[in-house]
């Protein structure tokens, strides 16, 4: 009979030591960061915080519901900004996604890097910053907001779409190719049907995010609810702020519900 060992360790001693050392470094970093963070803190303000919060809270309550009718048009603007921005984003993102996906790109050497750069550039800039830039270029208003939302959406939709395109089943594509179909027909018959659920899921998800984002874009002058929010904050009209926040909350809940319904319907 051969002797078999009776002990078995999940990690080698070396790996255990490295792991322990890693945790040590993390704790040390945390302690150091804590010191940096607190060295310029004025503690009096912190001790004061609960009282201040209670003060603002008491001013915010009760919300001024008579302000609601005035919010309906900005709310409509916000919804339009999100919807049109999403549509713009989709229109621009779909070609970018096909250029970026390894299996559909016409040129992996030039066009694919360009498409990937567009996606990264769009994603790296927050829609609030896009809106700031566009308000400076186009002047304040809804148009700047729509384009800001659209530009920010390219990266999100483009990235998720090109991943979906890359995950398509090669055998279905092979089968359609084998019938003598042209590349455009292969796209239409083998690739598009496979990515349709992902396409609708991503679009509705982004629309849902864009409603939240467009609600604050008014802060930098791009119209919609954010404009009202800024006006109310500037005049310290706290009950109005509460009303606006409630409207945003209600809108987000409704859009979340819609996007959940759409996604469950298509899968």
């Amino acid at each position, binding site marked *: 009979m051969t002797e078999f060992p009776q002990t078995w360790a999940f990690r080698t001693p070396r790996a255990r030591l490295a792991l322990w050392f890693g945790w040590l470094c993390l704790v040390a970093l945390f302690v150091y960061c804590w010191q940096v963070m607190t060295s310029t803190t004025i503690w009096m303000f912190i001790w004061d915080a609960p009282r201040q919060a209670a003060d603002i809270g008491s001013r915010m309550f009760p919300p001024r519901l008579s302000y609601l009718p005035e919010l309906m048009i900005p709310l409509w603007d916000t919804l339009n900004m999100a919807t049109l921005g999403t549509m713009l984003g989709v229109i621009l993102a779909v070609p970018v996604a096909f250029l970026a996906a390894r299996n559909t790109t016409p040129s992996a050497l030039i066009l694919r890097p360009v498409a990937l750069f567009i996606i990264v550039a769009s994603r790296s800039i927050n829609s609030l910053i896009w809106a700031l830039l566009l308000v400076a270029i186009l002047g304040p208003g809804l148009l700047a907001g729509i384009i800001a939302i659209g530009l920010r959406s390219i990266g999100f939709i483009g990235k998720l779409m090109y991943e979906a395109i890359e995950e398509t089943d090669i055998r279905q594509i092979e*089968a*359609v190719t084998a*019938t*003598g*179909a042209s590349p455009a027909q292969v796209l239409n018959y083998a690739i598009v049907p496979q990515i349709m659920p992902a396409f609708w899921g991503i679009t509705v998800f982004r629309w849902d995010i864009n409603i939240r984002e467009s609600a604050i874009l008014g802060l930098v002058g791009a119209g919609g609810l954010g404009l009202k929010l800024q006006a109310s904050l500037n005049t310290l009209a706290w009950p109005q702020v509460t009303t606006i926040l409630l409207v945003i909350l209600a809108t987000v809940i409704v859009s979340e519900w819609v996007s959940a319904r759409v996604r469950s319907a298509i899968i």
Partner: protein
Amino acid sequence: MLTVTDLTKTYKTGDKALAEVSLTVPKGQVVGLIGPSGAGKSTLIRCINRLVEPTSGKIALSGAELTGLGPRALRRERRRIGMIFQEYALVERLTVMENVLSGRLGYVSFWQSFTRRFPSADIERAYRLLDRVGLMEHADKRADALSGGQRQRVGIARALSQEPELLLVDEPTASLDPKTSRQIMRLLIEICAERGLPAIVNIHDVPLAQQFMQRIIGLRAGRVVFDGPPEQLTESVLTTIYGAEDWTAMRKDGEADRVAEAEAVARLAMISA
């Protein structure tokens, strides 16, 4: 008639999948291609319609050369070659009818195919084929709503809607149960006989190949090591194709199974007694 001459395929990794394979398939003949995994069966049939680009050699289908064609001419030639796949390779989210009609893509314009407005002759042919494979009432179902055997029937109808002059069949029964496998093989053979259609069928299952094929080609490591009628497929030939060790190991496994089975039966008899 299909003529393959000195077909060689070397993959980028340096693996030689096919080495100077030559064969001729006359009209109406159904050829079974057998061999161990990795012998190049799948590469061979994919080289014929150039889903895999051959490294060298010639392929001619009733006189027309297939190697060296440009993309447009290749697409035109591909219409003459129907292909049936291992896991059906239907477009799952399209309807059965769309899948069958996709066999006509090479004949219609992009716009016609995009709007799904196929010529009435194509539609009639598609219905006739669906009726032939027994799926008439499933025409408007989505392909992923069908069972394995039904999906493979749609795959057959799609290939036939091309009105092909040659069928390439890649492991048609690999994901089907034994009974459905036989039904599908029988259907394939019948259809080939009805139309005088030559076919090359990749097949794992040696008994199934012996039962249904008129001629068997054995591939081993990218070379043809056997070419003849199924009756000549003796044990020594199988050893050449599958390799001595593997073959005896398989038989030994079989023997071990038989012994185990006999023991189990004996034990059961003792318990029930």
